[in-house]
């Protein structure tokens, strides 16, 4: 009996010891894309190389596993230059989730540095803004649904939801690429959040303090009617890399 149970126990042990199931990544073809942020500040489209995007945002359970294997990212050990005081503060403990952080909810209150480190542990990186915006333009039927009023209404309806309500679990309906939850769950970090150059600083572009930015000046935002996306740009560009918020999470990407 004991001898027969042994292999089962070994298997069970192996299951616990093995890293969490590898995250799913979907292949996106890329191409030219009319971003709300023209590449040259005027009208040039963005050029996006083929890439892979995580089909779901990183969850609390996944981030907990990361923190356990990379203890320098525990909330009680992370240096202040990499995350503010609210980093993972809704977790029950530095190494436990608790009632305010369910395993299948997207992880939030993570800084840009922590999100980057997580993606590296998955042999990935944060998506660039263009990659993210391009992916989020899709709906269940088409790769670029932005002209469809229903797409915009869905995004804006989500913005209108009070941020005090608990976050749903990841795993919403897949879009045409097989990616989920890009709109409607959490805000997400992008690798080049500090390249968007709009927000409070850009007000100085027309003022006396032009020298704060070198070059052609702040990127002008296009597609003024697409304020759902512009709101996201404004939010991202107002962040510092150490900031953490209640509804800011992330997913990772890989170059092809």
């Amino acid at each position, binding site marked *: 009996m004991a001898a027969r149970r042994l292999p089962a126990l070994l298997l069970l042990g192996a299951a616990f010891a093995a890293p969490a199931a590898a995250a799913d990544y979907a292949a996106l073809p890329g191409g030219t894309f009319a971003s709300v942020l023209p*590449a*040259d*500040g005027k009208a*040039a489209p963005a050029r996006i190389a083929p890439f892979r995007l995580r089909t779901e945002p990183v969850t609390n359970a996944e981030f907990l596993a990361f923190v356990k294997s990379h203890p320098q990212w525990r909330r009680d050990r992370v*240096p*202040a*230059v*990499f995350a503010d005081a609210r980093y993972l503060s809704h977790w029950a403990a530095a190494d436990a989730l608790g009632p305010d952080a369910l395993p299948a909810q997207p992880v939030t209150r993570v800084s*840009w*540095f922590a999100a*980057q480190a997580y993606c590296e542990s998955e042999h990935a*990186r944060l998506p660039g803004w263009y990659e993210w915006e391009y992916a989020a333009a899709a709906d269940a039927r088409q790769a670029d649904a932005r002209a469809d009023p229903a797409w915009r209404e869905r995004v804006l309806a989500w913005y209108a939801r009070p941020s005090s309500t608990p976050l749903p679990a990841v795993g919403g309906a897949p879009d045409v690429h097989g990616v989920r939850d890009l709109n409607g769950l959490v805000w997400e970090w992008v*690798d*080049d959040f*500090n*390249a*968007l*150059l709009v927000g409070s*600083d850009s007000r100085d572009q027309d003022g006396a*303090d032009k*020298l*704060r*930015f*070198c*070059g*052609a*000046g*702040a*990127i002008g935002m296009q597609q003024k009617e697409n304020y759902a996306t512009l709101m996201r740009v404004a939010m991202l*560009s107002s962040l*510092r*890399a150490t900031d953490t918020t209640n509804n800011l999470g992330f997913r990772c990407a890989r170059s092809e």
Partner: protein
Amino acid sequence: MKRLLLALCLLLLAGQLPAATPLPGDSVYQLDARLTDQDGHQWPLAARRGRVQLVTMFYTSCTMVCPMIVDTLRLTRKALDEPARERLDVLAVSFDPARDDPAALRRYAGQRQLDAHWTLARAEPQDTRRLAALLGLQYRQLPDGDFNHSSQLILLDADGRILARTTVIGRLDPAFVDAVRKALAKG
């Protein structure tokens, strides 16, 4: 010979350990980034620890504000009295790792007649983005190869804590110069 090298390495390591007090949590030297300077030497960012310094980011082919960043750094050093000035170093890291190799940095240092207090450096793209994020600087490459970027001078204490910053470029910022003086008086 191999054993001798090993012994030397151990000796070096042992020699460094007692001296290394832990870095403060708010030190930019917490960032594990590698930089290469205008002489082609490669070192970790934390190798800058130990001296008060001014840090900025720029790129050598920039014709608009970057020359003025260098001018303003020079003005700031000149505003200090001689013994203090000698103790103030400058680190300028490129936004443009693709074009700013050590040779380009060396050429620039030559053209601008930058002395031994100045270190011009580059990092790999990912480390460049991280360093800018850490310093609170924004930058974006344009299709023509130029960059939009924020322009700041940042004052670090000997342990890499950010003491002050200024966005005043092209003339002296008296409050910033005061902060530099105070930092040097302490250090």
